[in-house]
Structure formats: structure tokens, C-alpha cells
């Protein structure tokens, strides 16, 4: 029950902060622009595409690229995943580091809550915000579902992959916020870790290596399969592992802080 109380409080704090609204407005406007461009491209090439047997459809050219540009390669304007690499650290930076500088952290300890519940409560609040954000982004390609043939399975797999990416980035952000003395440091470190995880295998792939530890470490490898519509237990396990490790580290740091005072 106390996790819900923490989540509720954290969600309220998130929604009254201008930062969350500004980020939502800017990113959704940018995603709207991306949607318009992708849709324009799809409509322009529709005759050519219709002639190709088994050629890419609306889902491949509009739905999935809205979520990430990993498959299409054209980065700008950004997809949900690329935007998340930047905005999730900004959203998560104050979760614990902000409490520390506010002097409100001891209040949580004095409420008799274990560190794990504080971390989970805050994490769930962030996830609720991110789920809402993702839902609004996915709603753009879905808005035309009545007039196009949508590959629901592929879009669902891609959305799941994107959601897991957001969950992993949020967990990393919370962990960074737990360790950093200032919110800005937390954001910088979370951004660096996120970018490193996303691009750790680029050099390996350029060198022709398609397997190995470096590729396994890379977020993009696990996300790419899901964007193609392939959901595997190994990929889901990778995301779950990252989330669990990051939240465990945040919990341990918070518990140690209570001990140390």
C-alpha cells in the first residue's frame, strides 16, 4: 500500500512540474512532425509499393519508424526511442537527487518505508508518465488504422520493445539519481549510460562482428528484433535484467544513505 502512496505523491509532483509538461509538449510536437513526414513519404511511394509483392506497408514505413529510426536509418526528426535517450534522464534526474538537495529525503525514511518501496514507488510514477507519453505517440499512426492495413502483431511487438527501452532507461535514470549528489550530474550520467548502451556495438558491427559480448550488451540489438516484430525471451530477459540491476543499485544506495545518515 505504501508503494501506491509514494507513486501517487511522485506522480502529483511530476505533473505539477513545468519540466514534464514542456518535455511532453516539445516531444509530441516533434513526433507529430515526424508522423507527417513519414506519412507523406508513404503516400508518395504508395503506387510503387503496391507493385512490390510482400513489400513494406504502413506499419513498416510509418508505425514502427515512429517508435525508432534504428531500422530506417534516417534519424531526424527523432523517433520515440531517440527522444527517450534525452528526455528520460531529464525526467528522472530529480527523483532522488532532488529530494536530497531539498532536504526531504529523511522524510521518506521517517515514514518507516523501506528503501525498496521508495524506489519502486518513484519508478512506477515515472513509468506511468512514460506509458502515457508512448500511448500518445502510438496513437498518431493508429489514428489512421481505419483506412490502412495495419500489421497489429508487428506494431505490438515494436511498442513492447519501445516500452521496455523506456523502462530500462527510467531504471538507469533512477539509479543515477540515487548515486548523484546533484540532479544535473544524474542527468549527465544517465544520458551517457543510455547513449553508451545504445551505441556500444556500432564499432563492432562496422568491424563485421555480429555476435559476442559487446553486441549482447547493446540495447539496440535487443530492440531491433522487436521492431522487426520478433519477440524473444532472451531480449525481454535482457531488458528485465537491466531494470532489476538498476533498481537494486538505487535501493542499495538509498538504504546505505539511511544507515550513514
Amino acid at each position, binding site marked *: 500500500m505504501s508503494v501506491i502512496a509514494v507513486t*501517487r*505523491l511522485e506522480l502529483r509532483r511530476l505533473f*505539477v512540474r513545468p519540466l514534464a509538461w514542456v518535455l511532453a509538449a516539445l516531444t509530441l510536437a516533434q513526433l507529430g512532425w515526424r508522423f507527417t513526414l513519414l506519412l507523406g513519404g508513404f503516400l508518395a511511394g504508395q503506387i510503387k509499393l503496391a507493385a512490390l509483392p510482400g513489400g513494406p506497408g504502413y506499419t513498416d514505413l510509418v508505425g514502427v519508424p515512429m517508435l525508432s529510426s534504428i531500422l530506417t536509418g534516417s534519424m531526424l526528426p527523432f523517433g520515440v526511442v531517440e527522444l527517450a535517450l534525452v528526455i528520460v534522464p531529464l525526467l528522472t534526474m530529480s527523483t532522488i537527487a532532488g529530494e536530497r538537495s531539498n*532536504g526531504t529525503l529523511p522524510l521518506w*525514511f521517517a515514514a518507516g*518505508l523501506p528503501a525498496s518501496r521508495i524506489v519502486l514507488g518513484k519508478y512506477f510514477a515515472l513509468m506511468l508518465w512514460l506509458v502515457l507519453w508512448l500511448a500518445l505517440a502510438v496513437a498518431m499512426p493508429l489514428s489512421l488504422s481505419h483506412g490502412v492495413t495495419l500489421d497489429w502483431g508487428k506494431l505490438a511487438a515494436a511498442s513492447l520493445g519501445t516500452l521496455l527501452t523506456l523502462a530500462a532507461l527510467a531504471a538507469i535514470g533512477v539509479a543515477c539519481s540515487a548515486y548523484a549528489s546533484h540532479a544535473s550530474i544524474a542527468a549527465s550520467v544517465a544520458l551517457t549510460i543510455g547513449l553508451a548502451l545504445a551505441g556500444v556495438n556500432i564499432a563492432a558491427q562496422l568491424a563485421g562482428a555480429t555476435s559476442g559480448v559487446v553486441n549482447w550488451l547493446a540495447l539496440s540489438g535487443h530492440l531491433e528484433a522487436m521492431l522487426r516484430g520478433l519477440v524473444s525471451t532472451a531480449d525481454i530477459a535482457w531488458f528485465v535484467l537491466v531494470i532489476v540491476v538498476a533498481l537494486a543499485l538505487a535501493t542499495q544506495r538509498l538504504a546505505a544513505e539511511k544507515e550513514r545518515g
Partner: protein
Amino acid sequence: MTAPTAVLELDHITRHRAGRPAVSGLTLRLDSGQVLGLLGVNGAGKSTTLAMIAGALAPDSGNIRLNGEDFLERPELARQSVGWLPERAPLWPELSVAEHIDAHGRLRGLRGAALTQAHKAIVERLELGALSRRLAGVLSQGQRQRLGLACALMHKPQLLVLDEPANALDPVQVAALREVIREQAAAGTAVILSTHLLAEVTAACDRVAILHEGQLRYDGLVDGGDHKALEQTFFDIAMRGNEGKNRMQAA
């Protein structure tokens, strides 16, 4: 006649901070309805002691019992039984006064009608109605203290822990605070408040404990407002330490 119930028992608690003992072997008992003033010079260990009693800080050794139950084994007791107002009322600047009160109520386990009723009662008692929608970030120091006190009292705690509550309050606000403390004590709440103001102790407390260099040096009843005797005891204790010697030399 029944013996008074011990709400709080500290049993040889010790806590180190920055490599030195901030509190050392402190043993203390507080009964229901009692108001204990914790006196000490700056750095005597008052805030550390109160943070441990409030559950915000764990002692290195020793036991803390709340109503006879081990507080360290059951930290959730803090949620139910302790109200804490730290030295600077910690508030979330982006939340309103009403939101703070509700959030604290929920964190302390209040729900539904009980939460609404407690909210209404505390807002009325501490005259926070006019400030209800104001953000905590724009409150004056006195208003912040009042809100902090409301949050601490929201769940009707059995033990109220106040760390330098009269700091930055004007005389009218101090008088109102004393009234609240007396009301709480009359209702059976044990109150422990730290201060370095002797007048605060004689006016609001019925017992005084003097901490010096993390150790309990004096524990006795406040003698009918005998300010002079208490002052003498306090200075004797303070002067005995190194800090006291240095002060005397400086003077």
C-alpha cells in the same frame, strides 16, 4: 495509582557521524503526556538523537523502543506512532499546503474519510485554511514551520519529535506553538523538543535533558520555571567541555 506508560525508551544508543561519536550511550525514557526539552549547545547531538527517534537515522548500537516494541526491528512503527518536525521543515516546493497534508496523511496510512477528517481538523487547528492552495515554495519561514507541524501531527502520533521548532518564529507564533505542544501533552502525546533556548524549556517543558558532546549530562524536572537554576546547570555542563573552555578563554 498506575505507573505512567513509557512511550519512548532509548537504551544506550550510539551514533557516529563524520568519524566521531555524535551521540554516545544515550539512555532516556519518555512517558505519555510528558514534554521533554532536549538542551545542548550546537553540535551536542540533539538533531542526531531526534533523527534516530524519528526513524530517519539508524543508531550504530543500542535499542530504541516505542511502547515497548523494538523500533529498529519494526521501522513501520515510526509511520504509525511518530510525528517529526526537523529543524528546517522539509517541504516539496511544487506542492500546495493541502497536497502536503494529504500526502503525509497517506504516507502515514490514512485513507478515505479518516484522511479527510484529519486534514480538516489539522487545517482548522493550525489556521492553514487560507494557505491551503498556496505552494510550499512561496511560504514564509513561520508558515513553513506551521505546515511542517501540521504534517507531523496529521496522523495523531503518540510521540511528537520537534527539532528547534521555535527557530525563526515571531513571539506570537512561538506562543501558538507552545499552546499546541501543551494541547498534545494534555491529550497524552509524549513530546520531545530540542532547543538551545533556556526560556523555551522553562515555558513549554516539564522535564529537561541536557546533552553535551553526545552524552546525557543532566536529566531532571523543570523546577517551576526556575530559569536561573537551569541556566546555571546548563552553563556548568557546557563549560566543562572543551568548547566551554574555549568560550571562556575567548570571553
